[in-house]
């Protein structure tokens, strides 16, 4: 379990004019917990503190107040950090800034090598990870020759090779085109079926997280609302306030419901089509 208790966090910047250190608090007393194999979406406007929150989860940053616990280990206990980092992996937004190797194989090997993975089994593990994400490239392919979607799949393969228990995706699909984005999400869920892990998913696209167990809405460094998606979907004012937009078919279902038409709230594209055909 990931357990975050009353965690606050500030960035310290050098203020030029006053020649003093300036601290700006970006997380205020945040409390949350994420269970094994859960699928949690983190939502909120730009600058609301989602990324900062995830940096606390694997001990890249430490909370200035409060605690963060991963599977019973505190992130401020530095001897536990290697185990914590191994359990909590992150895929970032820009694929180019997270790849260390020149080739697909070398990049996957980087993480494995860091955790002291047995050298004899490394080749096998690399092939396993490439297969898991369905990357259509052999391990000798230079990373510069991959498309954006493939680069992000490689980033996924590189972290999944370490068998994390929690995987954080920090706007990992935001640089992909719609088709590549769909493929990436499908790959992710496929991998999760084969080797379950908890998913912590930051996004501005609600259609990617309709199946999530929980949505957590950040606002100005605080958790504004934490609950099942249904709780948000009925609250259009809240969604609009936080700059979130429902997929059109979903908004339509809600509008129909308001007019007294009985349609399921989780109206998908196929159901919508069938419904319209019935009126024809």
């Amino acid at each position, binding site marked *: 379990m990931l357990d975050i208790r009353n965690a606050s966090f500030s960035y310290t910047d050098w203020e030029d004019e006053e020649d003093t250190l300036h601290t700006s608090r970006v997380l205020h007393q945040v409390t949350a917990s994420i269970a094994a194999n859960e699928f949690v979406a983190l939502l909120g406007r730009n600058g609301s503190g989602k990324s900062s929150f995830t940096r606390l989860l694997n001990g890249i940053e430490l909370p200035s107040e409060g605690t963060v616990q991963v599977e019973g280990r505190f992130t401020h206990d530095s001897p536990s950090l290697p185990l914590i980092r191994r359990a909590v992996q992150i895929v*970032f937004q820009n694929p180019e800034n997270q790849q260390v190797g020149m080739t697909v194989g070398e990049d996957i090997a980087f993480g494995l090598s860091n955790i002291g993975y047995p050298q004899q089994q490394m080749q096998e593990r690399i092939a396993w990870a490439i297969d898991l994400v369905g990357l259509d490239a052999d391990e000798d392919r230079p990373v510069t020759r991959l498309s954006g979607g493939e680069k992000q799949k490689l980033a996924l393969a590189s972290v999944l090779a370490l068998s994390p228990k929690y995987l954080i995706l920090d706007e990992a699909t935001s640089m992909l085109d719609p088709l590549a984005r769909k493929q990436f999400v499908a790959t992710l869920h496929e991998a999760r079926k084969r080797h379950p892990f908890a998913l912590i998913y930051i996004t501005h696209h609600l259609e990617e997280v309709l199946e999530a167990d929980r949505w957590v809405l950040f606002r100005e460094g605080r958790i504004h609302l934490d609950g099942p998606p249904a709780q948000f979907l009925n609250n259009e004012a809240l969604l609009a306030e936080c700059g979130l937009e429902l997929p059109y078919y979903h908004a339509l279902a809600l509008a129909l419901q308001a007019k007294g038409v009985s349609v399921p709230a989780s109206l998908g594209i196929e159901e919508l089509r069938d419904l319209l055909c019935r009126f024809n």
Partner: protein
Amino acid sequence: MANNSFLLFQKQNTWLEQWDPRMKITVSLIFAASLLLNHNLILKTAQIVLLIALWWVAKLSWRALVFTLLSLTIFFISTMIYRSMLITNPGDTLIHLGALTYSQQGAIDGILMCEQIAGIVLLLSLVVRTTSPIILAEGLEMILKPFKKLRLPVHEMVMMFTIALRFLPILIEEVDKIRKAQMARGGGFHRKGISSRFRGVFPMLMPLFVLSILRAKELAVAMESRCYQGDEGRTPIRLYQMHRRDYSVLAFSAINLLLVFIV
């Protein structure tokens, strides 16, 4: 992308790629030494021919070879000009080459010097083009291991070198983007006249610098997330073993060096 990627390593699984990196680095050093110490025209020419033969064995492109040698033309020409008339003993036969005049010794020295430049550059590009940077780095790290005892940050230096190589193509691409963006705004690189063109470079440096810092910051976070903590507890990506072929290449380069002393 296409035009700068040929400057770097591309995997082809040739014979040269399979050589042990430690051996490759050692042999290159020995070979470089023998190139520098060699003052015999025939032997030195033979060494250059050998390097070109290895280029062929490594299945590297001939275009790249020609490009490499052509890019050295200015050094060849200036060396030859410098060498003209430099050493003249009374009674020397003088060779006239256009406006330049050479004594026999001067001409030979000039050619030797040119061969030296070409040899070293060919050797270096052979190594870089037939070895993946990570393997090269691991080889270097293994060779330099004794210096770790002197608290020299060997691992960190080698890591820096690898990452620099990794980001080179991206940076080149970035320069191109910034240049185009500034051209679109009417500034920058394409203006006429050397001095204003030179001044056009400076506005590019700042964005490039900032972008690199941001990249480096993000990369550092990503590396740390992926459990990087220096060389502590790391396993090498590959198991390196010296094979008989490596020892024979090593022996061959030693003989080559010896030959230089004998001749």
